[in-house]
């Protein structure tokens, strides 16, 4: 690679590192949400404030992901935006609706809903990561 390219390269690698860390955080939060929800379902508990808070946190992180990827999408990739943002927006909808749905159910199946949503979001983050690369 020639000199001007290396200068240009510096920005994407820094950005790439931010994205890698953020993806790991997303994986961690959704995995914690899924496992915690499964445990609460087995323990026969309704979704408590903390669990609903965790799903709200995941929702917030996914919105941050949406904003980050809109901000950096432009010139960095030849990824199809319809495919990528289709996944991000679907993931946001899944978590938002699951949160409401779990809040309305005062039995063990509230966390059950969140477990299903959490597992779905893990798969979707994996797909997002594949598409981005």
């Amino acid at each position, binding site marked *: 690679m020639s000199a001007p390219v290396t200068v240009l390269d510096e920005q994407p690698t820094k950005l790439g590192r931010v994205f890698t860390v953020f993806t790991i955080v997303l994986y961690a939060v959704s995995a914690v949400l899924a496992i915690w929800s499964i445990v609460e379902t087995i323990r*026969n*508990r*309704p979704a*408590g*404030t*903390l*669990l609903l808070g965790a799903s709200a946190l995941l929702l917030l992180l996914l919105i941050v992901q949406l904003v980050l990827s809109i901000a950096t999408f432009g010139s960095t990739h030849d990824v*199809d935006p*319809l*495919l990528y943002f*289709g*996944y991000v927006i*679907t993931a946001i*909808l*899944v978590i938002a*609706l*699951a949160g409401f*749905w779990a809040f*309305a*159910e*005062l*039995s063990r*199946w*509230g966390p*059950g*809903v969140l*477990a*299903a*949503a959490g597992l*779905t979001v893990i798969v*979707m983050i994996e797909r997002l990561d594949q598409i981005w690369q």
Partner: protein
Amino acid sequence: MNKRHDGGGARSAAASAKKDRAAKRNQSPFSAMHTGPGRALTAVYGVFALSATARAGYQVIREFDVAPVAYSLSVIAAVIYIVATISLVIGNRISHRIAIASCLIEFAGVIVVGVLSFTHPEDFAKPSVWSSFGSGYGFIPLILPLIGLWWLSLVGRRIRTA
């Protein structure tokens, strides 16, 4: 809502949940379709409706000519998941029947498309939700209609005996 604790209040919360569900059943017995375990089922159906629609929409907009048969089937699958989800959410006598019908269509679809994807692989160059018996989705499309039928018949039986 003041019963919503993480620790000690769980028992009273569970009791109030039971009361809540009983009250709901008095309003319309078929609303039991989307409460308790049915809520988790409805959520999974909702996830499938949403993701199948998003995927089918993308496939049709961007690359319909690549595999028209598989992508048309994706659209049909998405529509059936939407119908099933809406019937579960509505939860009355008629939507109970519609939900049973859509579960049956779904199961037949998974079996037929699953077989076709092995006998006519050239039509399934690109995957649809139901090809290879839903292996791309962890075989959930194969199991989900069976769980759905089991749950719907349980709800129906409970209402008939009550």
